Each structure stands twice: as structure tokens, then as C-alpha cells.
């Protein structure tokens, strides 16, 4: 009898609990509908975290502040072993505050990493920053384009750009990791052994799972991105930045209005031109354009971890796609700034194409540019443009960004190869001389070791080998199509 009463009471309690949960759900929906929620419920959060954030209520901001103060103090004291944990707590206390995620990730990747003299330790902290955004931030804010953009920024700027003297190490590490997973530059669609030209086997199931779980890269989406804009070399940081910016755009397209709900984005980047000042969608768009342009400039990677070879050279075949994307964006936003950026890119592209002797293509682009930009001086012919810009550029080679400088040197060497193959030894020597002179001027402008480390060019021999290979590929049309 006693047991029966207990069972009855237990059942009644469970029934009551179930009823309360149902009512609670309705109430929650009602509050969300009428925008009565101070913070939206956490998505994908473990129960303990969801409970903590709800239970702490308004106090969680206070606790986050205290933890933040502690972070600053520890950082000043150089005691950084606790920072990752504090960042984890702070972000989880304010899981919808995009700025918090962005700042904490940026702090680890930018500020803390440089506290370490060795590249290995720096890379660990850059990775800690990436992981915070990729593994945690996006998990709780899957519909926030700003966070995708912030994640892309770490790849594009921290790993891809020359700010950090350890950036060559970061690039190599990323390439090494991705090469191990992908067995090459990208996800191959041909099964193992069916294509005799494919030197490597495609990733196996375990590796695909690793892509999904560890790097949060969806193989299907990677293929889709390759098909729409590429194909790209997935060992390059710019490709990852492109992927995340593209994911951000997709998210924004699938969830209209999500961008407006998010809080103000981060203004903590040192670079004023960072896309973070823009709303998430536009920033993602801008990042995509920047990454596509970078893929054109330096999207071809020759990497060999055994010999520490890491050379990036232009992907000339990507130019039409990059131009198309730029034009679509200009049509979408109709912004003067974007048009200027595109004009500059076209100028850059003309110079690079000219370096490789692709004057017909360069001339066509120049014509298009004149058509598109009525305020350009139409009296200047293509040859005058090249004459003025290319010569000036050779004089001020030291000021050129490293990918452009590589492109020019490799382009000149490429032309030397072609001439040599055609039996024109005289012109071949002239191109060789120009390439060497250009490289020398560029390197002379880099007096310090740190500067050379960050922005130096590969040796001439290495670039010559790249040029030779490119020349070989262009004479074998199959090879060119293969890269597509």
C-alpha cells in the first residue's frame, strides 16, 4: 500500500513535470515571439552550460567582466597558461555576444601568440584562437555571419598575411596538416587508381570524418565551392578564409535577418581596412573577393614538407571567375569603394598577365577596364600603361607586396623558358636578367632578417623551376585542364 502510494506520487510528480515542461515551452515561444527574451536560448549547448547561463541571469555579465579583468592581468604578467580556459568561460557566459568571441579568439591568435619567441608555441595559440571560434563560437551561433567572417579573418590575415614573422611556419603547418588529410591539394573525386594522372589516393572515410569533426569542413560544401569558384588548393589559408566567408554568406542567405539580430561586430583589429567594420554579410562578401583575388595572385602552391619547399605563384586560370565575382558584387552593392578596389585589382591583373607574356588577355582586360570606368584617361594606350606601370614597378620593386613580386619574377622566368624553348636565347637571357634584377631590388629593400623572413622571395632557382613547370604544363593542355 505504502509502495503503491509512492509510485502514484512519483507518477503524479512526473506528470506534473511533463506538464510544466510543455507550458514552459509555450511560454518560451511566446516570449520569443514578442521579443521578451534578454538573450536567446543557446543552440547546441550542453545542459550544464544552458542551465548556468540561464541560472546566472544578469550576473553572468558581471562574472564575465571579472574573468576578463583577470585575463588582462595575467596577460600583462605573461602568465598565459590560463588564458584559453578564461576565454572559454567568458565566451560561454556571453555566448551570443559576437564581439566577445571575436575578441577572445583574436587575443589568443594575435596578442598571446607573439609573446612566445618560438614559432611552434605561436602556432599553438593561433590554433587556440581558431578553435575557439570554429569549434565553440560557431557551435553556439551557427547563424551568425559575423563569426564566420571573424574565423575567416584568422586564416586570411593571421596565417596568410605577413604581419607575423612566424607566418611562413603557420602556412607550412596548415599545408602539412591539410596535405596529410586530403592526400594532396584538394578533395579528389576520382576513386583510387581509376585516374592514372592522379598521383595520390583520395581521402579515406576516416580522413573525411577528420575533416568534418576536427576541421569542421564539410566535404560536400568543399566540392561545391571548388565547382562554383575554383578549384582551389585547400592547403592555402586563403582557401580556408574563402570557405568560411562563403559559409557565412550561405548562412545569411538561409536565415534572412540573422545578421541584424547579432550584436555589433568587433572593431578590435589593428587593420582599419578589416572587413569587420561592415555588417556580417557584406564583410563576408568582401572577404570572399579578397580571397579570390589572393587565389589568383598566389593560389598555386608547390609544397614539400621534406625539403621545406613552400612556394606560391599565381593561378592565372582563376582570373575570369574572380572578375565575374567582382562584377556580381559591384552589381549587388553598387559602392564606389568596391569599384575602386576592382579597378586596382584589374590593374594588378594586367601587370601579372603581362609578366607572363599573356598580353592578349591583358589587353582585353585593359579594354574592359576602360569601358567600365569612363573617368579613366582613354588617351593612354595599353602599351603606354604597361610602359609606365611595369617600368615604375621594376624601379620600386621593394614596395611591392610579396605575392605580386613573386608573380612578376616567376612571370619573367616563365617567359625566359618559353623563349629558350623557342630557341631565342637572346631574349631568354634578357628575361632572366630582368627577373634577377627585379628580385635583387626587391630583396635589397629588405635589410633586416625579420623583414626578409616575413616578406622575402624564394631563391631564383626555385622560382625558375616553378616557371619551367608552368611552361611545361602550358605546352601539355591536359595538365591545364586537370587543374580545373
Amino acid at each position, binding site marked *: 500500500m505504502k509502495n503503491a502510494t509512492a509510485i502514484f506520487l512519483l507518477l503524479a510528480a512526473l506528470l506534473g513535470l511533463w506538464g510544466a515542461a510543455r507550458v514552459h515551452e509555450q511560454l518560451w515561444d511566446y516570449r520569443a515571439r514578442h521579443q521578451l527574451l534578454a538573450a536567446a536560448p543557446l543552440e547546441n549547448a550542453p545542459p550544464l552550460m544552458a542551465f548556468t547561463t540561464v541560472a546566472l541571469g544578469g550576473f553572468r555579465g558581471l562574472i564575465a567582466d571579472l574573468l576578463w579583468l583577470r585575463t588582462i592581468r595575467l596577460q600583462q604578467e*605573461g*602568465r*598565459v*597558461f*590560463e*588564458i*584559453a*580556459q578564461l576565454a*572559454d568561460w567568458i565566451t560561454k557566459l556571453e555566448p551570443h555576444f559576437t564581439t566577445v568571441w571575436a575578441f577572445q579568439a583574436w587575443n589568443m591568435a594575435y596578442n598571446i601568440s*607573439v*609573446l*612566445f*619567441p618560438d614559432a611552434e*608555441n605561436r602556432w*599553438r*595559440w593561433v*590554433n*587556440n584562437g581558431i578553435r575557439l571560434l570554429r569549434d565553440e563560437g560557431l557551435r553556439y551561433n551557427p547563424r551568425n555571419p559575423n563569426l564566420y567572417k571573424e574565423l575567416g579573418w584568422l586564416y586570411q590575415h593571421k596565417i596568410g598575411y605577413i604581419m607575423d*614573422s612566424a607566418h611562413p611556419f603557420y602556412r607550412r603547418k596548415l599545408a602539412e596538416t591539410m596535405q596529410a588529410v586530403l592526400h594532396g591539394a584538394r578533395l579528389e573525386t576520382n576513386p583510387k587508381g581509376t585516374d592514372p594522372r592522379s598521383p595520390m589516393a583520395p581521402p579515406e572515410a576516416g580522413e573525411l570524418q577528420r575533416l568534418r569533426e576536427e576541421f569542421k569542413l564539410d566535404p560536400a560544401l568543399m566540392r561545391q565551392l571548388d565547382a562554383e569558384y575554383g578549384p582551389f588548393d585547400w592547403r592555402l589559408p586563403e582557401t580556408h578564409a574563402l570557405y568560411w566567408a562563403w559559409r557565412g554568406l550561405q548562412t545569411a542567405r538561409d536565415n534572412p535577418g540573422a545578421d541584424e539580430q547579432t550584436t555589433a561586430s568587433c572593431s578590435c583589429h589593428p587593420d582599419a581596412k578589416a572587413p569587420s567594420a561592415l555588417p556580417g554579410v557584406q564583410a563576408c562578401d568582401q572577404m570572399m573577393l579578397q580571397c579570390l583575388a589572393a587565389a589568383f595572385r598566389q593560389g598555386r602552391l608547390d609544397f614539400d614538407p621534406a625539403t621545406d619547399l613552400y612556394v606560391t605563384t599565381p593561378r592565372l586560370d582563376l582570373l575570369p571567375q574572380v572578375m565575374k565575382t567582382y562584377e556580381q558584387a559591384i552589381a549587388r552593392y553598387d559602392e564606389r569603394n568596391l569599384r575602386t578596389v576592382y579597378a586596382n585589382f584589374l590593374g594588378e591583373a594586367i601587370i601579372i598577365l603581362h609578366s607572363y607574356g599573356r598580353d592578349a588577355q591583358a589587353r582585353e582586360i585593359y579594354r574592359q577596364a576602360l569601358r567600365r570606368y569612363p573617368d579613366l584617361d582613354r588617351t593612354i594606350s595599353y602599351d603606354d600603361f604597361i610602359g609606365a606601370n611595369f617600368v615604375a614597378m621594376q624601379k620600386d620593386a621593394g614596395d611591392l607586396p610579396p605575392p605580386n613580386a613573386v608573380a612578376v619574377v616567376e612571370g619573367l622566368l616563365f617567359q625566359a623558358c618559353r623563349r629558350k624553348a623557342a630557341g631565342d636565347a637572346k631574349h631568354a637571357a634578357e628575361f632572366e636578367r630582368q627577373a634577377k634584377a627585379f628580385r635583387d631590388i626587391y630583396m635589397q629593400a629588405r*635589410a*633586416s*632578417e*625579420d*623583414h626578409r623572413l616575413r616578406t622575402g622571395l624564394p631563391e631564383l632557382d626555385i622560382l625558375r623551376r616553378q616557371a619551367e613547370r608552368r611552361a611545361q604544363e602550358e605546352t601539355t593542355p591536359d595538365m591545364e585542364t586537370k587543374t580545373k
Partner: protein
Amino acid sequence: MLSKIIAISGLTLRTAMRSRVFALLIAMVVICIAGLPLMIKSDGTAAGQTQLFIHYAFGLTMTLLSIAAAWSAAGAISLEVAGRQMHVLVTKPVHAAEIWLGKWLGLMTINLIMLGLAGGLIYGLLRWTTRNAVLSADDQVSLREEILTAHSLIAPEQTVSKPAPPGGAGQTLSAVPPGETQSWTFRVPERTSPGNALFLQFQFATSRLERQMPVTGLWLINADDSTKPYRTLGSYTPHVGHALKLPPVAPGQLLTVTYKNVETAEPATVLFAANTGAQLLIRESGFESNFIRALLLVLARLAFFSALGLTVGALFSFPVAVFTAFAFLFITGLSGWIGTEALMAEVDLSPAWLAGLLNAATYGIIQLANFVTPPLARFEPLSFLPTGAFIPWALVGTAWGILAIGYGGTLAVLGFWMFSRREMGLAAI
């Protein structure tokens, strides 16, 4: 007198041991500490993981036990007054001091048991998570030399700059222009064991605007019994602590350390702090003895918290006592901050005389709070243990002298006096 104190402490201990709260506290400490390695998120290195575990496990233990100590002490007298057990006890031939001391001794025994348990658990887990099977040999060595050790810093006996600085003595920074050198002379203490690694710890700033841009430097280390100096060239980031492992040096030797600011394409003057710019890091003792000293520092803190709880419990009812004790704990916890940053803050309003008055009043209150709260930050084991810094016995002695005897004793006298004057027969305040 002693037998009565022991009887009361035994009663306190026995009561506590049998209460569910005690069992709950043990379970909480065990679960928290044992579950910690699974929950913490370190920087990804074995050293970081170990440091974080020591820091959080110790911090957690300290927090839990401090709260438990203040809570149980606040209830030790006040709850007995409310439950009228104290009515019977004070009709027996015992002095208020005997009751207070007996309770304190009982609570300290509980603190000791809890701390021993938590300490044992932390140590066991530390050994388990850093065992040979888990970590590489390199990680093991670096852990042993940098974290699971007890080292202290030795200041240089002499600092020589070339060229000599124009300002003369009293400078806080010494500048090393490009191409110039600076030397420090250290006496390797006799107490160092010849087998243990010596480190040179240094930190500097540069004249560059780019704070983090590294500089190239050459270190020359010369012991007075060796003819060939040890040389190492490296690129070092400013504003970051660096540790250079030195070759073995016999105890008692004079060690001359010279830094040459290597001239590069982008030269920079390097600035060392006069006393702390370069210091010798020597191993003072093993990690285990340091760990025990850290536990003793925690125990000194618990001695103070127990005294605090007992005294407020002797005066107030349980809720009031707990509130008072925790408020004091909170202020004490902030005392480090109060002593430094809060004093610098100033109210700015008009009229000026009102602002001045407010500032003076605030300053006075903060100074008073700083004075009445014990300097816990000075005896913070977390400043030492996770970084492998040596905790001298003198510090442990000072902690017990100041926290347990000084502050605890003052509270005890206050507690005796108030308790002996309190009318037990009144309804609880």
C-alpha cells in the same frame, strides 16, 4: 584547562564528522578535484595543463575550504546557542576562552583532515596525469625542471654596463645600445645541488615602438673555474620572460653573465630593469616539500577564517554571523586590489571642496579596510606553486605569525571577551 579544551575540540570534531554536511563537503571536494582534469581547457601543452591543474585544483580547494571553514566556524558557536546546547555548556565550569579555543582546535582538526585529503588527491592526480606513459621524455624533463620543482631567483651581486651609464647609481633601467654589452655577476649559492639545472631568467624592453619585435642578442656565460665561456645567440621577444638553461656550475662559483646587443639592420637599444632584468633561477627544493609548504599556507589562511567565523558566531546568530564572516571574507579577498588600485581612484566633481572631502573620506575608509583585513595576497600559494616558485619556510612562518597568531589571536581575544559578556539566555539576536 587543556583537558577541557581537548574535550570541547573532540566534541566539535565528532559532531562535524557525523554530520551530513561534512560528508557532503568531502564528496564535493573529491568530485571537484577529480573531475577538474576533464573540465579544464589548457593552452595545449603538458606544462600548461599541469600549471592549470595545480592552479585550479589548489584554488578550488582553497575556495571550498575557506568557505567551509568560515561557515562551519560561524555555526560552531551560534548554532549551539540557538540549539541551547550552549546554555548547558556555559553552566559547566568552563571559561569562554576554553570554549572558543576548544571549538577552534576542533575546527582546525577538520580543516587539517580536509586539506590533507584534498592535498593528497591533488598530488595523486598530478602524478597520475604526468606519469611516464602519458608524457614524452622531453615534457617530463621540462615539467620536472620548470614546474614540478621549487626554484627561486637570485639577484646579481654586481651589474656592469659598457659604456657606463651617464646617470650613475639609482637608475631603475640600464640601457644596452646596439653593439654594447651588459654584465651581471652572480654567486651560485652553496646550497644548490650540482646535478640540478641552472637557468638565467631575463626580460627586457626595447627602444622600438613595435613592442613585440624581437632583437638578436648574444649571451656569454663564464664561471670563474672555466676557461671557455658558454655562448648562445638568439632572437628574443621583448616584454616576455625568457629562461636560458645554463651549463652545470659548481656551487659557490662566481658566474659572469654578459649580454651583447648584436648589431643588426634594424638596431634597437635594449633596456633591462636594474634588479630584475636578469636573475639566476636555482632549484631550492623538491616539488613535494614546496607542495607541503603551500598546504601550510592554506592552513594558515583557514586558521584565520575559522577564528573569524567563531568570533562572529560568538556574537551573532548563525545567519548574521555567516553574512558578517562572508562580507569580511569578500573585503579581505579584495584587499590586494583595495591596497593598490582603489587608492588611486578619485572622485571628480564640483564643488572642489566636496570632491576633496569625498576623496579624503574614501581614502580613509579604504586605508582602514586595508588595515583591518589580513594581507592574504602576500601568502597566496597560487603565486608560487603553479610556476614552480619556491615557498620559503620563512614565508610559511610569517603567514602563520600574521594570519593565525596576529589576526587570529586578535579575533580570539575579541571572541573571548564578547562571548563571556554575551547573555546566552536571551533569544537569538
